[in-house]
């Protein structure tokens, strides 16, 4: 990779959502950065914390309501079991294209050198503790810490 001042050196990805498609978007972007020789950190805040919460990360769903691209009428999308059905269908498709599940993806990310951070404010709000989180999470940090880690040329911050 080019090391000049115009190239991307580091991706700081903020994940604020806990729906499956958003979590995958953040993970694919972080992993893709590492594959290109770009450093990558993920900062999990608000519902994004679900993706690193040990008891929740294997139960993430796609949203079937309020998502016109799903092509499911809102009334139908809200019926009991619809989210689970849509999620299981999506997971089957993902497996076909070699997409890992959330836990395996976290392992790939940490092995690839992606740093995972949990937002202190959101941790306090949801009453989560460090031991609730996936072991690969580096630390619980403030937004100020996050900005400090974002310093340096060629850093890009991405909010999901």
């Amino acid at each position, binding site marked *: *990779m080019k090391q000049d001042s115009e190239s991307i050196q580091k991706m700081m990805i903020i994940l604020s959502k806990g729906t499956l498609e958003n979590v995958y978007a953040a993970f694919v972007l972080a992993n*893709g950065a590492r594959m290109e*020789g770009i450093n990558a950190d993920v900062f999990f805040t608000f519902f994004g914390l679900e993706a690193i919460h040990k008891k929740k990360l294997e139960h993430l769903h796609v949203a079937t309501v309020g998502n016109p691209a799903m092509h499911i009428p809102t009334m139908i999308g809200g019926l009991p079991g619809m989210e689970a059905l849509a999620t299981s269908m999506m997971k089957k498709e993902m497996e076909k294209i*070699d997409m890992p599940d959330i836990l395996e993806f976290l392992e*790939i990310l940490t*092995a*690839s050198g992606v740093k995972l951070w949990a937002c202190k404010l959101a941790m306090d709000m949801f009453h989560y503790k460090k031991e609730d989180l996936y072991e690969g999470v580096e630390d619980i940090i403030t937004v100020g810490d996050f900005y400090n880690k974002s310093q340096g040329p060629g850093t890009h911050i991405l909010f999901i």
Partner: protein
Amino acid sequence: MERTIAGNTISLNEEGYMTNFSQWTEEVGKELATEAEINMTPRHWEVIKYLQKEHQDQVALSIRRIGKSGVVDIKEFYQLFPLAPLKTATKIAGIPKPASCI
């Protein structure tokens, strides 16, 4: 384009990947590794040989697949080829750059 590396004429695409694997020799691989600033060890060669075999078997390469290969885990793969491991290693191996997002 064509280049002469280690006494062999090889064809490369615009990104520097070999387009004809039959032109690859270990000497060519060594020279490509030097250009990528990789100091090849027996461990590196094991990974390169594995990638070449996967390519011959027409397997689509990805980081996930390499992690499951039993040859090298993802952490070591990044240690061996620190910057963009899949891109660097396939270039040294003389095989096409994988079109993989994972």
